């Protein structure tokens, strides 16, 4: 059994650790995640062979803790979000997450000799909503990969990703509105679920 002193020191250590995490600058966070993920992919033969399930495990462990998925989904759904019941919001979030992880995973299986470099930040230190700009470098032209992050309760969380000038969540807004227009929020949920089932059937 833990002595009282060691319990206190453990508690303090945990506090310090979480404090250190909250202090991490947004660009440092992006750099840490990118390097972690790229290194893990390069070290894993099954991912390079195209095993999407393995990538999903990796993404869940390394990336998802730093993503504000509720905000991502709400932004894509836009002004209809507040009309959705909590259950609908939950389902939307789950289906959209599956869809995006699959996309990201598909891209990750293409990783070979790439590395990530940070570009200069244009934000002020006191900002709590920033864009971190990076470039993925490998063979061929560098690929622009930017992230929007916001600081909520001390921690930075990603809520949109930009590939080659295209914000991904923003890009879903019209598609989502189109589905909601045709079949309501349940129609959109069904459409996302269908899409995920079809993609899962292929892998």
């Amino acid at each position, binding site marked *: 059994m833990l002595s009282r002193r060691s319990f206190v020191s453990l508690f303090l250590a945990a506090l310090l650790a979480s404090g250190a995490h909250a202090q991490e600058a947004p660009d440092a966070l992006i750099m840490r995640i990118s390097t972690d993920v790229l290194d893990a992919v390069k070290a894993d033969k099954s991912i390079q062979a195209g095993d999407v399930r393995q990538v999903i495990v990796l993404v869940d462990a390394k990336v998802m803790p730093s993503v504000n998925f*509720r*905000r991502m*989904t*709400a*932004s894509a*759904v*836009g*002004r*209809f*979000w*507040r*009309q959705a019941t909590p259950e609908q919001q939950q389902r939307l979030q789950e289906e959209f997450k599956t*869809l*995006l992880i*699959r*996309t990201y995973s*598909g*891209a990750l299986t*293409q990783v070979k000799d790439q590395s990530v470099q940070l570009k200069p930040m244009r934000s002020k230190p006191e900002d709590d*909503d920033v864009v971190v700009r990076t470039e993925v470098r490998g*063979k*061929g*032209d*560098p690929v622009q990969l930017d992230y*929007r992050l*916001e600081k909520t309760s001390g921690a930075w969380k990603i*809520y*949109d990703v*930009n590939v*080659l*000038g*295209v*914000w991904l969540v*923003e*890009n*879903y*807004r*019209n*598609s*989502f*509105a*189109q*589905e*909601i*227009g*045709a*079949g*309501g*929020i349940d129609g959109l949920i069904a*459409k*996302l679920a269908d*899409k995920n089932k079809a*993609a899962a059937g*292929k892998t």
Partner: protein
Amino acid sequence: MTGDFHPAWRRWVMALLLLASAGCATVPPGTTQRQQIDPFEAWNRKVFAFNETLDDALLKPVATGYAEVVPPLARRGIGNFYANLADAWSAVNMLLQGKPVTAAEGAFRFGVNTVFGFAGVLDIASEMGYERNYGDFGQTLGVWGMDAGAYLMWPLIGPSTMRESLGLPLNYAASPMYLFNLGLAGQFGVWALQLVNTRAGLLGAGRILDDIALDKYTFIRDAYLQRRRSLIGEDDEPPAPDPSQDDPEAAPAVIPPPEPAK
């Protein structure tokens, strides 16, 4: 290239002027944003379906076979050759956009790769640290302040806008198929090789696209429009407010009535 005005272009410009005058008509009140950016959606979707069919039946199978036969290194060399010629045109456009330093760098890239990179097959300039800055005439028109106008889907060419379409004739005049005096068969060969080589490089991306797009037409349109905006430096808009945060002043949205099936 012959000196006189290409007859195909004349028809093109006429068609464009017609479209442009249609696009300039005032937007009736009550139209949604979707109708504003894509007033020809019904027509565009037909052209898109045609392009998709053509891609499935012809271009994709040819590109797949090509990728199996031609080794990656050779494909990269061919891609570099075309990209090098595009670099020269990018440099001209950088100059037109009032960016002389970027233009000079682009011209230097083109010179180095042409002379030392075997007519552009090797991209030596990139390895020296001179990055590619893409430019075309549609982008130049955007930098000059012209609005993108309506979204347009062209057969074979793909996504475009009114403004980008105005840039197309000049972009084509500066493209490899017109730069050299090759005759019709030669022009077709140069164009087809570029098309197949580019498509072969996009086979993986095409599979991802099929997986993630709810409606491929809408997804490609919105990605294209965003990408073009970012190319003329209009990407610094602030993000939309977070709808998951409670905002008591915001009026609840009304779900629009279903649109008639197309």
